[in-house]
């Protein structure tokens, strides 16, 4: 696609180079560390699952036993327990839930551990590859049936069985992507609950069983409607890698997954988040999952006109962190949002400029475009118009993943009819003006072109400042979203460990090989 905004390639290259230099020292830190949830994710990939009578998940039971020796890698003790007890994975899960201490068993011969681990890696690989090829086969079979951009809706009842009804209805009405929003505060739990759940606030617990239930329900719609339906959840918060692991096992297709969101907006410790995001992204990369990054959050906190450059800067950083974790450009659903004050004269031109700029700078990424939320009011009739303008920009600028705005955004979690009306609105606008974007050229000296160039320049200046300061200090000093997050504060720091020389994680090694890292 030729640039309709006449973006200066040399400045885009400069921004990428800065992003690369900003991220490099953080990567060194990441590669020297592990965390409790990285270890639990590894155990989950190996088959650890279930919970004890108090509901404590098996992966957490294992980690708690090993707290002093976690720097060696948890898998060693788990694999050793398989070898020593002669149990299969299900049997060991049961025994751990009943109180077996895996740290109490003498370590077997390293060759035996290597051999057992290779078996587990192979079994996991078969399952994840199977999921990936099933998805690819269905997408090929039903090629051309999805909308472009993909129409994305959220369900959030708190009860997985009720979610299923809402998700099925939305998929039947044409939704391409269904996200099950998580219950408030799950991001701050340092474990992933077990089993199907029916109680949640503002959303539904992400559990492996809930993933399985929703996947099965949507697969029925896929076959009936002859259209693939992408399932989405949240690999974010204190359990980023574990959720990614569960998603890989249960064939989720997209994951909300941002390299810095948890630090800034959930007050999770920065060391912890940086280490967690890398492992979660490697799993997502391997499973063929499309990540959705969270730049929209900068704009709900700060002003969308003044702080537009923070979105672009974050996109460059998310892209760099994603490359470092083996994600391909087609897997990078870089985020942004239609959040400018609707009363601004020519605000629409700036929204169009921002969206087209993102499209041109990240040509292969399936950009994730978020709807108006901050300036949605109880006036549902104006809300419909705001959403229509958002739909217009999305179609005209060729966004990849389009989260539908709800007319009742500021009022309640969506009614079934709200989703239907949103889908009808998007289908109408996007069909009716399908090829408008290709018909239009922008004036070199006009508002739209000049705005994009100005935002890029501000972004380069901002990235230069971060490079000089260092990313971690920049976060500590409040350069992002005016939020200060000191290095040694925030949740989850106690779950960080420096890897010992003898750290052993065959799954991590396998991911490195598969992803060419």
């Amino acid at each position, binding site marked *: 696609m030729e640039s309709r905004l006449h973006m200066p390639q040399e400045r885009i290259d400069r921004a990428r180079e800065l992003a690369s230099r900003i991220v490099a020292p953080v990567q060194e830190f990441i590669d020297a560390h592990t965390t409790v949830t990285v270890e639990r994710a590894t155990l989950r990939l190996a088959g650890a699952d279930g919970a004890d009578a108090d509901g404590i998940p098996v992966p957490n039971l294992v980690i708690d036993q090993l707290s002093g020796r976690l720097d060696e890698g948890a898998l060693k003790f788990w694999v050793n327990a398989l070898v020593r007890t002669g149990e299969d994975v299900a049997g060991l899960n049961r025994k751990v839930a009943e109180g077996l201490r895996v740290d109490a068993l003498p370590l077997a011969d390293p060759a035996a551990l290597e051999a057992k681990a290779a078996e587990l890696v192979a079994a996991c690989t078969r399952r994840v590859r199977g999921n990936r090829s099933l998805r690819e086969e269905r997408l090929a079979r039903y090629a051309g049936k999805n909308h472009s951009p993909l129409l994305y809706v959220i369900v959030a009842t708190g009860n997985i069985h009720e979610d299923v009804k809402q998700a099925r209805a939305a998929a*039947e009405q044409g939704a391409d992507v269904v996200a099950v929003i998580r219950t*408030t505060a799950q991001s701050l739990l340092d474990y992933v609950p077990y089993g199907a759940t029916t109680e949640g606030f*503002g959303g539904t617990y992400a559990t492996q069983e809930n993933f399985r239930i929703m996947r099965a329900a949507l697969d029925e719609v896929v076959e009936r409607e002859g259209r693939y339906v992408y399932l989405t959840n949240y690999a974010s918060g204190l359990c980023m890698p574990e959720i990614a692991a569960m998603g890989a096992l249960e064939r989720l297709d997209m994951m909300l997954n941002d390299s810095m969101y948890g630090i800034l*907006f959930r007050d999770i410790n920065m060391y912890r988040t940086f280490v967690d995001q890398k492992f979660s992204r490697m799993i997502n990369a391997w499973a063929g999952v499309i990540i959705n990054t969270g730049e929209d959050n900068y704009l709900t*906190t700060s002003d969308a006109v003044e702080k537009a450059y923070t979105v672009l800067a974050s996109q460059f950083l998310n892209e760099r962190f994603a490359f470092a974790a083996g994600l391909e450009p087609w897997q990078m659903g870089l985020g942004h949002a239609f959040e400018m*004050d609707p009363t601004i004269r020519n605000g629409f031109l700036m929204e169009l400029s921002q969206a087209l700029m993102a499209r041109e700078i990240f040509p292969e990424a399936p950009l994730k475009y978020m709807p108006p939320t*901050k300036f949605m009011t*109880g006036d549902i009739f104006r809300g419909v118009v705001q959403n229509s303008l958002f739909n217009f920009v999305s179609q005209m600028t060729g966004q990849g993943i389009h989260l539908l705005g709800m007319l009742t955004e500021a009022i309640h979690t969506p009614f*079934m*009819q709200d989703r239907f009306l949103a889908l009808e609105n998007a289908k109408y606008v996007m069909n009716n003006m399908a090829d408008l974007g290709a018909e239009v050229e922008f004036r070199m000296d006009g508002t739209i072109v000049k705005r994009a160039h100005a935002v890029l320049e501000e972004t380069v200046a901002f990235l230069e400042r971060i490079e000089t300061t260092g990313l971690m200090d920049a976060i500590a000093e409040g350069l992002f979203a005016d939020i200060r997050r000191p290095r040694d504060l925030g949740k989850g720091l106690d779950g960080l460990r420096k890897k010992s020389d003898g750290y052993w994680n065959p799954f991590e090694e396998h991911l490195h090989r598969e992803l060419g890292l």
Partner: protein
Amino acid sequence: MTTIVRPYGDTLDDGAVQLSFTLPVPFGPRGREAARLFVEKLGFRHAEVVHAAPLSGDFSFYVAYGRTEVAVDVDTIHVEEATGEKLYSMNEACAAIREKLGRKVVVVGACTGFDAHTVGIDAIMNMKGYNHHYGLERYSEVEAFNLGAQVPNEKLIDYAVKVNADAILVSQIVTQKDVHIRNLTELIELLEARGLRERFVVCAGGTRISNKLAVELGYDGGFGQGTYAEHVATFLIDRLVDKVAPGGA
């Protein structure tokens, strides 16, 4: 005096009302008739279903109009808003604080419990404010501390004590299964248990919060949709002045 009013479509007292809703029945003539009957049973005359559409195999959506005889007498209505008709602008509020209190007003705010939605507290407190109404941080005579999201009630109280706050503002956006009621109640109970309730002016805000609800829960005031920093500032100043000189101006 009585002033009886009904909804207005295009003629006084026509009672015209617009409705939209979903029924858990398949789309079709039976569903449409069910929708019409439902509107009639609500008490509407001339119930008319003007649009029907299938939502999925088992659900259908309707837009309907009806006319009602129901009326209200606006003269008997007593409105319980936290603030009266008179509002201080930012500059007037700061002048009033200087003049009537002679010191800065300290305000601590947070989105408490597990609620992660800061949009409400940010609209009231942040420098930028909302919809061209500056937030309390911009007020020269207010020291505002916005603690952000997911703040436990205990921590909020500790912080208010630490900075010797005059007022505590709590925002609750998530209201599913009445989680906000429990959370708001807990704050008041904690304050009372620690003997601190009278020390602070305590306000609740959120899209589903009304002054009536907040007062019932033991708050000094409550603020819902359409609230700006001026509303909160006006209320706080009036209350704080009242505390200094009860019953006075």
